[in-house]
């Protein structure tokens, strides 16, 4: 039996005395590709933040696999960023910040780090923006920079909160292919509203709406969603290949 990278046990968490998540348990294994779905306000982002250690749960425990190199377990793409676009920082530096744990505290970046940053930007298709200031990017370009930052440290678990909100259709397709490839070496946890599209890439599904229901397959019917207390619609698109979802009769 493989050991989980992250293990959430009986998590209850919320804001200002109001619980958003209750009794949540989830284990993420090294070859997982989990699609996290659920209605707006269902607690998906909160779940990710608990997992990342950004929010302290009221009760329950979060356990991490031992880090061979501290700080390199998880890479994260936030859903909303209130980043200050006028901050004096370049695209390259933002991506390099994802390598801080590999660099360490008192040593400078080396050549290999800069090459890694460039190759991460190549993967997200924007290496020509390397020296741009962050304030001179479009929303989609910024999202790709932040995606490169999440990838650059080769984390063992990649956590993506709605990675396609701002990007165009073409990159959306490319991104899913990229994730599929990355999944050979790392676990991926991805929040998405587009169940129809992601289902051919993900392996399993977690439905989050205050509670978490784990669905150990990438096919899910609307009936099952209802049973999981996860009232979302399954829409399928033509632009990206997808598997046909089971319809209940």
């Amino acid at each position, binding site marked *: 039996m493989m050991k989980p990278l992250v293990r959430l046990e009986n998590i209850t968490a919320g804001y200002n005395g109001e619980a958003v998540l209750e009794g949540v348990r989830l284990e993420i294994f090294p070859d997982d590709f989990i699609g996290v779905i659920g209605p707006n306000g269902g607690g998906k982002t909160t779940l990710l933040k608990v997992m990342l250690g950004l929010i302290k749960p009221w009760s329950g425990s979060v356990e991490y696999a031992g880090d061979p190199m501290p700080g390199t377990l998880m890479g994260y793409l936030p859903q909303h960023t209130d980043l200050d676009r006028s901050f*004096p*920082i370049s695209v390259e530096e933002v991506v390099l*910040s994802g390598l801080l744990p590999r*660099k360490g505290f008192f040593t400078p970046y080396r050549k290999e780090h800069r090459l890694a940053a460039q190759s991460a930007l190549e993967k997200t298709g924007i290496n020509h923006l390397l020296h741009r200031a962050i304030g001179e990017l479009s929303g989609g370009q910024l999202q790709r920079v932040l995606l490169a930052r999440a990838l650059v440290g080769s984390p063992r678990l990649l956590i993506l909160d709605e990675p396609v909100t701002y990007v165009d259709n073409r990159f959306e397709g490319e991104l899913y292919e990229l994730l599929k490839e990355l999944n050979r070496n790392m676990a991926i946890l991805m929040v998405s509203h587009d169940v129809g599209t992601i289902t051919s890439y993900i392996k399993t599904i977690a439905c989050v709406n205050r509670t978490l229901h784990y669905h150990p397959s990438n096919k899910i019917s609307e009936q099952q969603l209802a049973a999981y207390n996860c009232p979302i619609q399954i829409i399928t698109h033509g632009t990206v290949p997808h598997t046909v979802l089971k319809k209940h009769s």
Partner: protein
Amino acid sequence: MDNLVSLFSYEFFTRAVLAALLAAVSCGIIGTYIVSRRLVFISGGISHASFGGIGLGYFLGVNPLAGAAVYAVLNALGLEYLTRRMNIREDSVIGILWSFGMAVGIIFIYFTPGYAPNLMSYLFGSILTVSAGDLWFLLTVTGVSGLFFLVLYRWIVYMAFDLPYIQTFRLPVGWISYMLMVLMALTIVVNIRVVGIILVISLLTIPQTIANIFTRNFGRMILYSILTGMVASLGGLMISFYFDIPSGASIIFLLSLLFILARGLTALLSGGARGNIPDERTEEEAGKIFIASE
């Protein structure tokens, strides 16, 4: 010129020149952090609040700047804690600390029996009366800041840019933010002698605003700010000396002129396309607006 050289035979003048240079270096470093992280209002609050420490120092008979240092550091740490941990609306808290500190300062100064100290020098700076002790204090804080930024530059900049992301590494970095708040408070206090409580915030923001016209790189912003600050503080020192006016006023006056000059030049060079600063604002406001508009 001979005249100028002979001035250095006066110890007070040499000290003033050193203080001007160190002020530019310390404010260049910490000011860039303040402007980048948009801590301008917090710094204004801390500098004004430190007047409470000055009053307390007088009352207790200790060095007023030592009192200000303790008071400012406590305020800064409290603010960092409140805003990071409790999600409190910091601007209201700062407003209270700001005025409370000023009130405490005045009350204690009036309670102090005997003489009424020279308030003007604390409010508007008095670079020509910098003591050897003041200078050592300034040198120490500048040295520690410089070393801190040199060694932890990347961590400092990337944490300032996106702290939550750095926190996902789950590495022990919280102390870096607190250390920066302490350095910020101390930088403010050691520069009170040079430009005064009321104007210190300008020395922490105008050079950066000028630097920001020419660069979008944190490190270069520090460097350009230091150079700009040196020109203004040395020039301001001479004006203060020859016209016998508070050094804070002359330094900030020069800095504002430099800002207008730099802004005007770049506007001219780019065909006036970027010249969008309304001219009747104060430098501080103009600085904030310029940064916000980028």
